[in-house]
């Protein structure tokens, strides 16, 4: 079987297209490469959606932690503490078991003009349940990063904004938020990278890989079990993730350049990967 054939058979296997049965005997290098690459679709799906959604929630959480309003502040602090203080692995397990004991029937949401039936069984599926956990998790980590940056916004900037008569949302949107984002961006880049890494946990927790549609590491461990040779599939996963990390750094440094555009060159912050406190 040629490698092109394998690509069309297994290229989209992880989302349910192509050959149904996974390769069992005489597993070729090409099959490992294609199937693990196919699994990367899930890693990318989880990470991108969680990061996009989390970007907004984390800004809200950072503002909450910084707020004087007791309820808002305490809620944000507790949220951040719970998700940063406990292992993501346990969060996945806990959330899955919670979703399982949710009432099996749909919950009707009456929005006045239309009634939506929330299918609670979807929560036990990885595409939604695990996504929610990852979304909350990245929001907490990024929320802490943004909070730190928010506290570091120079007071002169805020005073000038006041002097110009900017208030409320306008002040936040034009002055505080861009500076906060600029200060937080190097750390946020790291958070994004480790978010991608964290997606590898999903299918090792309660969330089942339905019809063997799993992520990259799910297929890698499948191959390692079948061939009893860990020296091929795991380096392949490593290769894909290094590639992904490089692409991600490229994208984030473009944004970084945009954020730092107005500064003299020696004050610009360079992106640098560090590993502080970002592994779950």
């Amino acid at each position: 079987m040629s490698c092109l054939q394998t690509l069309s058979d297994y290229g989209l296997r992880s989302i349910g297209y192509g050959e149904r049965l996974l390769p069992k005997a005489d597993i070729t290098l090409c099959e490992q490469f294609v199937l693990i690459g196919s699994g990367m679709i899930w890693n990318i799906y989880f990470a991108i959606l969680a990061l996009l959604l989390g970007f907004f929630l984390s800004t809200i959480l950072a503002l909450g932690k910084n707020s004087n309003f007791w309820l808002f502040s305490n809620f944000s602090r507790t949220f951040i503490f719970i998700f940063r203080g406990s292992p993501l692995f346990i969060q996945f397990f806990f959330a899955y078991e919670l979703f399982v004991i949710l009432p099996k029937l749909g919950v009707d949401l009456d929005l006045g003009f239309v009634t939506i039936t929330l299918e609670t069984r979807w929560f036990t599926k990885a595409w939604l349940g695990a996504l929610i956990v990852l979304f909350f998790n990245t929001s907490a980590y990024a929320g802490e990063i943004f909070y730190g940056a928010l506290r570091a916004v120079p007071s002169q900037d805020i005073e000038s904004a006041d002097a110009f008569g900017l208030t409320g949302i306008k002040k936040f949107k034009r002055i505080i938020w861009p500076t906060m984002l600029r200060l937080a961006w190097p750390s946020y880049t790291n958070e994004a990278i480790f978010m991608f890494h964290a997606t590898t946990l999903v299918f090792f927790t309660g969330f089942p890989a339905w019809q063997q549609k799993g992520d990259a590491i799910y297929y890698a461990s499948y191959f390692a079990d079948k061939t009893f040779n860990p020296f091929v599939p795991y380096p392949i996963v490593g290769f894909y993730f290094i590639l992904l990390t490089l692409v991600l750094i490229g994208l984030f440094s473009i944004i970084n350049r945009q954020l730092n555009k107005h500064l003299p060159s020696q004050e610009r912050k360079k992106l640098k990967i560090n590993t502080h406190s970002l592994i779950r």
Partner: protein
Amino acid sequence: MFSYCADPKTLEGLIWLFCYITTVKHMSFYVSFLVVMGLITLAAPLAMAFGFAGAIACRSSIRLFRYLGKTYLAMIRGIPDIVFFLFIPIALDQAFEYLRHKVLCPEVTEAVRQGNDFVVCTAAKLPLSSASEWVHDFYGFSLALLAFGFVFGAFTGNVLLGAMSAVPKAQLETGEAFGFSPRQIFRRILLKQMWVYALPGLSNLWMILIKATPLLFLLGIEDIVYWAKELGGIKTGVYEYPHPDWRAWYFGVLLIFYLLLTYLSQLVFDKLTFRLSLGQATMAGKSN
């Protein structure tokens, strides 16, 4: 365990609960918390050793060491740690068995890898199939420990390398001016000064290490996650203590356990940072 627990079917309310949480299986659950603590206390020094070696290698004057060290420290940034946790125990196991196979059974000429099988002679098996249960457990735990040491060694190496380069150059130059040899400068000045710079990073790593311990479950070790799954599952009437699906509760307990552990560690580290920065030429040191 207690005499009045002899017939669980007749018990009710709090006494039932008390008898339930003191069953033999629950005792194994509590012991597994100690396994987690044991892993943390053993993995931390091991990671320190790996990290120190990595950081030293990065600063070595021999190019090969420098490359090896840098690759080791950089690897962890690009590749998810789970890959290492899954890879290292199997890889080490196969490496050990392969070596033993070569040494102990030189007469066997067939290849070790035959298709999808990894075949070594019986004498080379690790642990020996005749070995008792605890040897198997111990071997599994040791491999897991090495995997943790390796992964966290890379993280620690990054922190230590950063701390070494954060020590003010002037201090090292002073050492040179006093006629210290490079080795003396390293041991008497760099090594003594770097800790205060390394502490924030190391305290973070400690937290990460705590939060990585449930991954023991992936390595097939009967840790707290294993027992939580085991004990929490539905127990039908054939069991002594029947109950519905309680796994969410058990994982809730684990969640609280970890939150407490990280919270307490944070308190300790705050104290330690305060102590170490006393008298240092830093902002924290001056303000005390």
